[in-house]
């Protein structure tokens, strides 16, 4: 017994609350991240389990959703590239993964509903997000793939991803889709059908087309089906799930089933299980000009691949007409010798042209800059 006790001392893991102190040393993670020449990565803020990020307009408050019930806000008042105020604004919500803002109204995408919080005229970042007024409760409330990604399009409508609550299954009226609605929740309309689980979308700055990532099915081996980057060219297009994943991989159990409508293949196939989540088109002037209108995609990283893959940020290059022309690794190193040190989730551009990236494994928001 004593022998066991002594030897297990070395295996003690510390149980601690999420690190909120600003003096936590992240050099171990940061030193592993590799970026193209001239780029730098730093810690913008610390918070528990950050997911979707929304940079609020016009007052610069940044909201961050989670799958754990809380929403945080952060502000960099003195513009030094580090948030000087990080606050929990609400807790106890039902998987508030999604946050979006339009016209001084903050929207929260939860597992079972969309709600809004009118930002008071007498704004104060200490105010709790209360009351949250539901605008739409037309959702299938299942945890799996029920972490909503939301955003406002150039058409001023609110877009919401409704993941399929399964690995591979038939879809129902309000699962496996991206839908849009008016800001008051009315005029619900399917924008993209046959979508397994999209946890990121953005609109091309020039064409206004909606590009979205989609996570492929599990349980079919390490290398199929591909994860996807899709573009909506016609409202209501079907992107293949549960019949096809990637360009042409028939999904288990649906090999012999005939899709009821024509299917639209992805534009880009990403590696199977790399878990492509947030996507952000670059419109800033901090990065070199060649990055303008290219997209950055956060790969959360695989959970069930024999050799882990993903755990990085990809760059998707676009031509002047808004066509994707290829991909390359932009930032990597969150996978260190097969072990995760971080998992990128969502990417947003700040007004100064830098990028901020949420990581729900390392419990931080990174900032990526170019130049001095």
């Amino acid at each position, binding site marked *: 017994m004593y022998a066991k006790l002594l*030897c297990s001392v070395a295996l003690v893991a510390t149980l601690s609350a999420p690190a909120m102190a600003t003096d936590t040393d992240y050099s171990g993670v940061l030193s592993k991240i590799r970026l193209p020449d001239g780029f730098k990565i730093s810690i913008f803020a610390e918070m528990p389990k950050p997911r979707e990020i929304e940079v609020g307009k016009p007052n610069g408050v940044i909201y961050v959703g989670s799958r754990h019930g809380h929403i945080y806000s952060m502000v960099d008042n003195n513009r030094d590239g580090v948030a000087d105020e990080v606050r929990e604004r609400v807790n106890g919500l039902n998987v508030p993964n999604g946050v979006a803002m339009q016209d001084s109204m903050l929207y929260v995408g939860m597992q079972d509903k969309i709600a809004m919080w009118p930002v008071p005229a007498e704004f104060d970042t200490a105010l709790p997000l209360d009351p949250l007024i539901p605008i739409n409760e037309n959702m299938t409330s299942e945890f799996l793939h029920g972490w909503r990604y939301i955003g406002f399009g150039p058409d001023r409508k609110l877009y919401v991803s409704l993941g399929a609550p399964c690995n591979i299954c038939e879809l129902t009226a309000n699962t496996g889709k991206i839908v849009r609605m008016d800001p008051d929740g009315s005029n619900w309309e399917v924008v993209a059908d046959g979508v397994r689980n999209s946890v990121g979308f953005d609109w091309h700055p020039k064409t206004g087309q909606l590009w979205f990532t989609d996570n492929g099915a599990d349980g079919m081996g390490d290398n199929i089906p591909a994860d996807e980057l899709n573009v909506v060219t016609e409202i209501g297009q079907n992107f293949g799930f549960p019949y096809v994943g990637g360009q042409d991989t028939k999904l288990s159990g649906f090999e012999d089933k005939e899709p009821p409508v024509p299917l639209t293949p992805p534009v880009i196939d990403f590696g199977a299980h790399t878990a492509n989540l947030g996507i952000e088109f670059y419109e800033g002037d901090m990065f070199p000009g060649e990055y303008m209108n290219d997209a950055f995609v956060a790969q959360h990283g695989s959970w069930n691949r024999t050799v882990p893959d993903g755990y990085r940020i990809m760059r998707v290059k676009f031509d002047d007409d808004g066509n994707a022309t290829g991909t390359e690794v932009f930032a990597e190193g969150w996978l260190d010798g097969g072990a995760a040190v971080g998992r990128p989730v969502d990417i947003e551009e700040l007004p100064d042209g830098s990028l901020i990236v949420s990581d729900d494994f390392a419990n931080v928001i990174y900032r990526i800059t170019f130049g001095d």
Partner: protein
Amino acid sequence: MTRSFQAGLLLLACLCSSAEAQDAAAGRDKAMACTPCHGPDGIAVAPNAPHIAGENAAYLTSQLKAFRSGERQHEQMSIIAADLTDEDIADLARWFSMIEITAKVPDLD
């Protein structure tokens, strides 16, 4: 207790349980696949995954076997357990059961 006696005891302890340490190390290496959800230390990072640090090895073994056989179903665990051998399961159960945790009951007074 003298210092040399302590050192001797430590050496003896580690010699006695080197096989156990090896199994635990094997479990630690295999546990890489568990960390994205259950955390690098068995304290879950995903909201739909339980903490398994310090969990009873017999319980972990029985649940992994239940996922493997299909007796217990879960979208992710059924897939991940499908390819585990009995040895994998034993190593993983030992590793997670050896992680020490502390708990603090809220003071309501």
